[in-house]
């Protein structure tokens, strides 16, 4: 299994003797199909996935991983992804995570406006295609500006520097996201249902995920958050409709908490392997319990 997160979850579920069904249409060929019925607006008990007929009452929970993480290029692939999303959405059981919640971070500024409603500070942000405005923003922020992707496309967060200015002409062809640089210490908070795992990350790089590649330092350790902050994180995840989330925070030297993003399908094994936090176990417990 190539995806370490999926492998982790499957292993933890197997250790619990959970009755597990992996749905992977690509491996089942062109004849794969899915069918379900509704009566009075609720899903009927018998449904078919591939060549298996199963009872809805046998499904306790669903974990979606990498569904539609890339743009489906062929019609059949699009049809399968659409049908699976609609199917998961229709299920009256725990779904980690449902469609709309899963997609909030496909647009960081969209999600940022939601985050701001939950008591976190968000960095001053400009989305622009106008080089002059980018330069003005740089000046307004006293030259402390980073740039990063607007979408969920993985990008390395980098500081904007004077030597980048000649390249700013390129933003006339694709919008860019600029943010004021927030000094402080990074925290990655994983929420799993009502449980929370906080990891403090110390790094001298602008983007700790790529510290090694940039010849920077990175250390991580499990930490305990103050109760008020825990509540805010859980409220944020719940408000976004997420049973599993990875919240990116930064604590400033004066004690304020900025939230940059909430990852809706977090690669938690990276943190678990380093700190020993039992995030995969918590997720397996949640899936077995079958409720958010």
């Amino acid at each position, binding site marked *: 299994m190539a995806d370490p997160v999926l492998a982790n979850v499957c292993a933890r579920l197997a250790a619990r003797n959970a009755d597990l069904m992996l749905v992977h249409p690509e491996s089942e060929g062109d004849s794969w199909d899915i069918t379900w019925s509704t009566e*009075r607006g609720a899903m009927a008990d018998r449904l078919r996935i591939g060549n298996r007929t199963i009872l809805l009452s046998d499904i306790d929970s669903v974990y979606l991983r990498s569904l539609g993480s890339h743009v489906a290029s062929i019609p059949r692939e699009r049809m399968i992804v659409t049908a699976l999303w609609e199917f998961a959405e229709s299920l009256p059981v725990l779904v980690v995570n449902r469609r709309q919640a899963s997609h909030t971070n496909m647009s960081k500024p969209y999600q940022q406006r939601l985050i701001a409603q939950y008591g976190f500070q968000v960095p001053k942000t400009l989305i*622009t295609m106008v080089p002059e405005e980018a330069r003005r923003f740089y000046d307004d922020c006293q030259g402390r500006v980073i740039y990063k992707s*607007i979408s969920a496309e993985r990008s390395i967060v980098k500081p904007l520097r004077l030597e980048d200015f000649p390249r700013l002409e390129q933003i006339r062809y694709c919008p860019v996201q600029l943010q004021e640089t927030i000094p402080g210490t990074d925290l990655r908070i994983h929420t799993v249902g009502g449980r929370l795992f906080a990891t403090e990350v110390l790094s001298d790089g602008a983007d700790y995920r790529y510290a090694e590649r940039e010849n920077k330092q990175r250390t991580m350790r499990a930490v305990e958050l103050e109760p008020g902050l825990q509540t805010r994180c859980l409220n944020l995840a719940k408000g976004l409709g997420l049973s599993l989330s990875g919240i990116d925070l930064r604590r400033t030297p004066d004690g304020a908490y900025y939230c940059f993003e909430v990852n809706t399908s977090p690669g938690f094994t990276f943190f678990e392997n380093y700190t020993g936090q039992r995030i995969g176990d918590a997720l397996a417990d949640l899936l077995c319990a079958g409720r958010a």
Partner: protein
Amino acid sequence: MILIFADSTDPWATLVHREAQRTGGDVMWVEPLRLLDKILLNWPVVAGEAVIPGSLDIDGRTIPLNDLTGMFARLSFPLRLDLEGLSGADAQYVTKEATAAWLAFLNAMPCPVVNRPMPGGRPTLLSGSPLLAMLVRDHGFLFPASRCTSSQADALQQFRAWGESAYLKPLGSIEPGQFLYSHDGVEQIRRVMEQQAVSIQAIPHGQRVTVYVVGEEVVATVLQPSEDVTQRIEMPSVLSKRCLGLVGDLGLTFAECQFIVTPEGPIYCLDVSSAPGFWCCPQEVQPQIVCRLVEYLSKMRSLSRHDSPNGPDGRPSARERLCETRSPQR
């Protein structure tokens, strides 16, 4: 100013543009394919401000965001852009970035946006989630039996089991579905299912009614001819009010709704589409809809209006109820 984003062949956009010009309105039209060529977006992302900073630079004309009175956004997401000359990977990256920027922008503007896009796509099946189904029931509507399938054989079998009468809609489509009958149903199912999975719904016995909503108003209620209705069925007075409530709670400001009013009284809701069909809309109704759209998109509004991202009167609205996608407990 009204800003229209639509293909040059879009009939609703054509008429809205013409009507806005006829009534002396300031209106601009940008084709989605040319979005990146025509518009330079400059948007400081701030929430809850009465005055929106930033601007759009369209063909050299700078339009302050605060001057926008409405946007008629006939865009599909992810955006379809003309990115000729870029490599596949670059084109995909630019598409994702532009989509993310415009999706957030259209959701952030306090002026009316018809209709605001949703990340991941707007739910298209009313019975497609426990939360949506609850919304529909809350407004007093019933659901007919339905079947969702990616199997053509299964869809055909179901169509025959329902006496060769059904409402067909491709999964994920925001456009209205189609009523199938024995003379063309099999052919239509085969055609649609060449590339799409579908939902098919049974059509209860009763009067077919199509309701068009713009803003907070029912613009037209159209009684469709039905072979199985031999006597006139009185339209319940509550239909318009319930329909408006449902459309509003779905976060829509332009919608086509399909109902079946049964002789016994209960009303079935088959569909609420966020992209009303033009060609199936009666000719005498089209101008009414267009006039109402132009009115709706022309008036300066404050942040606290119904279709603001903050909901009616600035309070969290049913839009947020739709965001509340956590799983229900059994």
